[in-house]
């Protein structure tokens, strides 16, 4: 439903071609659009006002860089300013000299504290720590039960008892010391910022355990009120950071920006899915692009990188380039991509995809159908689709519950793709081959510099595969 901000700017500045400097009027027009975009993204009203003022001053002063259109120029300034607000760096957790490192989770009802507590515990575990969870939400029925069930899945112990939240937390701290757990994560009951009684309660909990980190958990869908909530929690507890949840939804998450601006504490972690591993440190630069509606290509690439088994992806990429990519590989890739989330969500994250295509319903059933067709083939047919004659085609259609036309369609698309990839092979083979060699020879530990360089080609492979998927998704070809 949102037109991307860059599209709108391109419209506004279309007539400016060849001008060397933005006029006052041009900038005013752009600022109106920015204001609407930010408000639609739930950025707080006062934050928007100050922000637009700052951007305006910078835009009026600057010459337009040769390589950029005026629209891009403004986007660049806006993007830089947004990133500056969101906080340039990810929060670095330093651990307490005498363990445990104590973390207090606070927030409104339903913001996702319990789930985030467990996800955070998992994150610490992945960093080689031994967390203990404390269930101090004795208010909501079965909240502790929920905490225990989730914690079981990641094999992290939970302490709780029905002796009142303050006592639970104090004993939890003792438990952590006795058991030698080095991180203590305290899940608390949801409370409204206006509820002074409950705010006093959490203040006394905080006083009792003196947390090293206090995180406010905020739902990415929150509207203008996020600022008030954050201010009051900050006033009561002195926050160290924000945990932003439900970012896998389609909310723009402007509240995040407002909170960061008003409270001056970074967004430390973001939760991006219902699985316990969908949780990581926050990357402000990507959020800026999301708020502006510019897609989230960086996150997409990284997500792809995580999900694709690296070796597998490399083998598949190599086969693509060699032209020996089979239908089996193809279905494998489809499944991998699906692991990253539903396809429409993925498409929405990619900039540069035409709007019609983004809005097109990508029916998961189409993907299922492709899978069914391929699975109805014999192994040799999957490797060499040229074997498939009309009688085989009819058999495959029957076996997969599709029509022969659908089978032919898929085969044609696959053929085209293979042809195209073969054509591209000249460009990529060398690099890929080199990266594979690198990988093999440098498997052991290396200096940080070497590791970074090495990582790059590995990113390239999955990106390549996603591009390929767009070419072949049934149902999409008509729209593109």
């Amino acid at each position, binding site marked *: 439903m949102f037109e991307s901000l860059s599209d709108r700017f391109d419209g506004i500045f279309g007539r400016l071609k060849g001008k060397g400097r933005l006029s006052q009027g041009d900038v005013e027009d752009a600022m109106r659009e920015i204001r609407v975009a930010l408000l639609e993204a739930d950025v707080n009203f006062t934050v928007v006002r100050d922000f637009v003022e700052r951007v305006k001053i910078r835009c009026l002063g600057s010459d337009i860089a040769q390589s950029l259109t005026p629209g891009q120029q403004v986007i660049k300034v806006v993007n830089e300013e947004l990133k500056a607000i969101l906080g340039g760096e990810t929060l670095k957790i330093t651990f307490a000299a005498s363990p445990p490192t104590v973390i207090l989770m606070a927030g409104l009802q339903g913001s996702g504290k319990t789930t985030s507590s467990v996800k955070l515990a998992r994150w610490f575990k992945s960093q080689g720590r031994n967390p203990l969870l404390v269930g101090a939400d004795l208010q909501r*029925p079965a909240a502790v039960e929920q905490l225990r*069930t989730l914690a079981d899945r990641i094999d992290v112990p939970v302490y709780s008892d029905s002796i009142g939240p303050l006592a639970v937390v104090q004993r939890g701290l003792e438990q952590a010391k006795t058991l030698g757990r080095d991180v203590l994560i305290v899940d608390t009951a949801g409370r409204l910022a206006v*509820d002074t009684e409950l705010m006093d309660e959490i203040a006394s909990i905080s006083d009792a355990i003196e947390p090293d980190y206090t995180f406010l958990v905020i739902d990415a869908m929150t509207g203008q009120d996020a600022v008030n909530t954050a201010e009051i929690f900050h006033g009561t507890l002195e926050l160290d950071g924000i945990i932003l949840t439900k970012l896998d939804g389609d909310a723009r998450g402007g509240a995040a920006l407002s909170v960061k601006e008003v409270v001056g504490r970074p967004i430390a972690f973001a939760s991006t899915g219902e699985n316990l591993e969908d949780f990581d440190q926050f990357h402000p630069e990507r959020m800026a692009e999301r708020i502006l509606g510019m897609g989230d290509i960086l996150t997409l690439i990284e997500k792809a990188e995580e999900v694709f088994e690296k070796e597998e992806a490399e083998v598949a990429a190599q086969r693509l380039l060699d032209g020996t990519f089979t239908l089996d590989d193809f279905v494998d890739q489809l499944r991998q991509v699906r692991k990253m989330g539903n396809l429409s969500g993925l498409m929405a994250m990619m900039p540069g995809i035409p709007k019609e295509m983004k809005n097109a319903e990508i029916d998961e059933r189409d993907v299922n159908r492709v899978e069914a067709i391929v699975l109805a083939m014999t192994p040799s047919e999957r490797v060499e689709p040229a074997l498939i004659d009309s009688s085989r085609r009819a058999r495959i259609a029957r076996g997969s519950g599709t029509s022969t036309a659908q089978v032919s369609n898929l085969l044609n698309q696959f053929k085209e793709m293979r042809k195209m990839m073969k054509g591209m092979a000249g460009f990529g083979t060398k690099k890929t081959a080199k990266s594979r060699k690198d990988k093999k020879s440098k498997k052991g530990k290396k200096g940080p510099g070497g590791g970074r360089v090495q990582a790059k080609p590995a990113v390239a492979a999955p990106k390549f595969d996603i591009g390929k998927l767009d070419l072949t998704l049934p149902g999409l070809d008509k729209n593109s």
Partner: protein
Amino acid sequence: MVLDQGLPEPPAESPLSELGEIVVPLEELVDEELELGEIVVPLEELVDEEPQASEDALEQQVEDSVNKKSFGSRLAKAKSAMSGYVTSIRNSEVNESIWEQLEEALILADVGMAATSSVLDRLKKTAKDEKITKGPELLEALKAQMKSDLDVDRTLELNCEGIPVWLFVGVNGVGKTTTIGKLGQSLAIQGHSVVMAAGDTFRAAAAEQLETWADRCGAHFVRGQEGADPSSVIFDAIISAEKRDADVVLADTAGRLQNKVNLMEELAKVRRVADRKPGSVAEVFLVIDATTGQNGLTQAREFALSVDVTGVVLTKLDGSAKGGIVFAIEKEMGLPVKLVGLGEGIDDLVPFESEEFVETLFSN
């Protein structure tokens, strides 16, 4: 009576049974500003006027809860989003700055850009036509306009062929389970027999949470294994409701973000199965957190597409005194807000009252 907007007849032992819902000619009850021929008055307004009808203890309990929980007074503890603006607007003439202030105030209440623009465009026309020059008059005109925009039917539907099913849907963490718990209590007080279906088979301990509520209000409770098919759990609850001759099935579902295609399809299936005999889906409530911003509109749109939502429950309104997004939802989607959550207590779920809602939005 808290929730008795259009419920079918309560059991005979209730002294209110002969009242139910009464169609009253306009002139007897409402001030003449409204231009309706006749309106359906919820029971509670009549109860207040006819206290002699009450002798039964149950009745007393219900009436207490009505008196105690007046919508506006319950919101008082939260500062109105607009209080600062309202004072300033009251003290100014109609000029460019007053329009800017109104715009800011509405946006701060999460009404949203588009809805705010349309509200103010119409108000500008009214101001011009009626030559409004003073701030207070303009504010009154705005209130009147918003009230008339929100003047829709909010009756809760229990009349249908078969066992009525009320389905609760929404994104994660909005308060679906808690809403069912509170609603079950209200219905139980009114003498209805309630079956609760733990259709949230995904979230850890969601069934236990609902079971606690069911125990509190004596509702029959049906659950499945964690990870079970929610449709089958709800269908089992309907069968069980038929056996016990229950009045309504309150069906919980797992929270889901509206952009998850698979989960939305699962929900559509839940609705189809719940609508199978002997069940009949009488209401589909979209539960929305009052602190939700512009994404609330997307939620309403997507859930309406998947499961044909019949009404909205606005939760946690005591925290913000805002919920301006429901204005956009009612205006754009035509989805009536039917219930409002005002706190954590079991009797903190009340019918939505648009007049009070608008008044509270602009109180200072």
